[in-house]
């Protein structure tokens, strides 16, 4: 659900940021609206975290403009933001509950209210019985869930989560996805940054793809997928499918081979090429919807549908 008629919660316009000779973010622009889940996608080191830090005024851009809640970042706006950084941070030698209460207080919450809400969150995420343990005695997954609680407990209007699923098992990944979807339904603005694109493509309304500091693709997920429809094939069978003419990449998922195609190559051409080979045996061949992973590979190699 994207409500682009409303004022954007976050508006990034042509921002640039360099560290010494390295240009970490180069002319990136996008808007994020209330009630949507926005994905900032790209490989590690693409500039996603730096963009978030620019958004949150941790860094100041060399050029361009950042607006949050309609204007520049101010101290009062911080209470309306929940941020889970990529570098997970909690005081390792402190008890879980007191750490979470402290963080909630720093977000402007009353202590009693913070304790009440935390009790509910801790129970929901199976941490209630561990609340008096020191953070360092919790597993990595538990620390990750505690961090999610800390991000959401003050009911922020803008939620920014950097690599939300790293360190989580499949059960907790599903739980966190549910929570994120709930937050969206509650009308909050959610920005998720990840290099695991397949994890978020079902969740996100719109995305920006960032590579080497530059925005390479930006728009609604459905629209982007439509643009790249037919540009991938799914194959089940035996043999080596990694070196097929006209194919950009080949990877296996759920037992099937996924092959994004180069621009101008049709699935029929690939099928003909494979049929002429004796070293492969095909049991299933179908035109696939390109995944965000596929689309990313196509875009960074300049293989756009129009190209």
């Amino acid at each position, binding site marked *: 659900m994207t409500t682009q008629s409303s004022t954007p919660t976050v508006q990034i316009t042509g921002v640039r940021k360099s560290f010494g000779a390295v240009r970490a973010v180069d002319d990136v622009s996008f808007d994020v609206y209330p009630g949507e889940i926005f994905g900032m996608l790209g490989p590690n080191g693409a500039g996603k975290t730096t963009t978030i830090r620019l958004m949150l005024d941790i860094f100041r851009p060399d050029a361009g403009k950042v607006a949050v809640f309609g204007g520049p970042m101010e101290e009062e706006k911080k209470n309306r933001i929940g941020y889970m950084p990529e*570098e997970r*941070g909690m*005081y390792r030698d402190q008890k879980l509950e007191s750490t979470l209460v402290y963080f909630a207080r720093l977000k402007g919450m009353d202590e009693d209210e913070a304790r009440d809400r935390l009790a509910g969150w801790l129970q929901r995420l199976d941490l209630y019985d561990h609340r008096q343990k020191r953070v360092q005695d919790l597993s990595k997954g538990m620390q990750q869930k505690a961090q999610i609680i800390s991000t959401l407990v003050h009911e922020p209007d803008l939620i920014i989560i950097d690599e939300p699923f790293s360190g989580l098992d499949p059960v907790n990944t599903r739980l966190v996805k549910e929570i994120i979807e709930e937050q969206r339904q509650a009308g909050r603005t959610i920005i998720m940054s990840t290099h695991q694109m397949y994890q978020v493509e079902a969740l996100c309304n719109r995305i920006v793809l960032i590579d080497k500091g530059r925005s390479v693709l930006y728009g609604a997920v459905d629209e982007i997928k439509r643009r790249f429809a037919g540009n991938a094939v799914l194959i089940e069978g035996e043999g080596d499918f990694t070196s097929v003419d006209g194919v950009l990449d080949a990877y296996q998922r759920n037992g099937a081979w996924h092959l994004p195609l180069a621009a101008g190559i049709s699935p029929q051409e690939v099928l003909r090429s494979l049929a002429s080979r004796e070293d492969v045996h095909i049991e299933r061949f179908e035109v696939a919807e390109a995944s965000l992973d596929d689309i990313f590979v196509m875009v960074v190699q300049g293989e756009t549908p129009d190209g």
Partner: protein
Amino acid sequence: MVKPWEVAKHEYLKAVRRRSFVLATLGFPLLFAAIIGFSVLVATDGGDSQPVGYVDESGLLAASQPAAGTQAFADETSARAALDAGTVQGYYVLPPGYLSGEAPRLVYLTEAPSDDARRAFNRLVRSALLADQSPEVRQRLEAGLSVTMQSAEDGRELASDDFLSFLIPLFAGMFYVFAVLSSAGYLLQAMTTEKENRTVEVMATSLSPMQLITGKAAGLFAVAMTQLAIWGAAAVLALTIAAAATDLFRGVQIPWSLMGVVLIYFVPSFALVAGIMIALGGVVADLQQGQQIAGIVNLFFIMPFFLFAIILARPDSPLAIALTLFPTTAFLTVAMRWGVTTVPAWQMAVGLIGLVICAVVAIWVAARVFRIGMLSYGQRLSWQTVRRALRGRELAG
């Protein structure tokens, strides 16, 4: 104000619950009590309670009554018998030519008579020597020359013969410096903790760097004040008890004026150390690295200890004055000089102004370096980056 207050409360509770804080805070009063107790024990326990004997061959003491703690013998044989029998600690022999310069002898077995016994005999001899003087003159001569030094500039007075009047400021200075440096250590830890625990970004999106710095510094300032208050109360209590127990501490007066100076110097000293430690916490990669550099920084504060003998021997020398004017050594040097000279007000004023200026600069530098430094996890900031941060080119907000 709520957020800095929350940070201050968090840091205060974390610091005072540390084992090292409890040990240092309670350990010092216990050490102080042990020293006072030992002094009282030595002062009250004169050792041997037996009198000291004397044989007067000079006739000087013929008209004197044996004073308390002394016992007259007609000749050395009987005195020696008493010594062998253990009824005297030893005995003096005033030779016939004593008044013309012949030295007296003190005879004992293995251990010299106690100070109390010797003082009793000295009093007896002095009284006899001054028998023809008026009681007022006798009293003056027996008391010795006791001078009260007075500064013409600020009117502060100083007793020349009261050893505690210089010991107490010295101890106060030591405790003060220790409190400032230990809380500075906590501050460095509080800064590197954020870095080591990767909580900087959470903090940066919850409150401003200045709010965070202010909160941490205020919390640890309260820690230092708590420590000083406990030590001060323990010292006053110990001295009060000691004064009631023995003459040694009876004339002791709490140097309230020095206490006032401590308070005036405390805030800027703490701010200076805090600024240095915050900036250091931002620059270094971890606590260990920070502590190594902090050790060098601390030297600038405790330097007067190494020059202790020179400062006490020549409290108005150019070196002592220079250390009084230098921001990091100002207070400790003032405390050392306090008991042995009158420190001119202008010197304290210049030292204090220098300290305040340095503290303001340190806090400014700290605030600039802090944010950019805090995000450099696991690595030390280069001087180039620090320079850029000071020029404001790496900063946000």
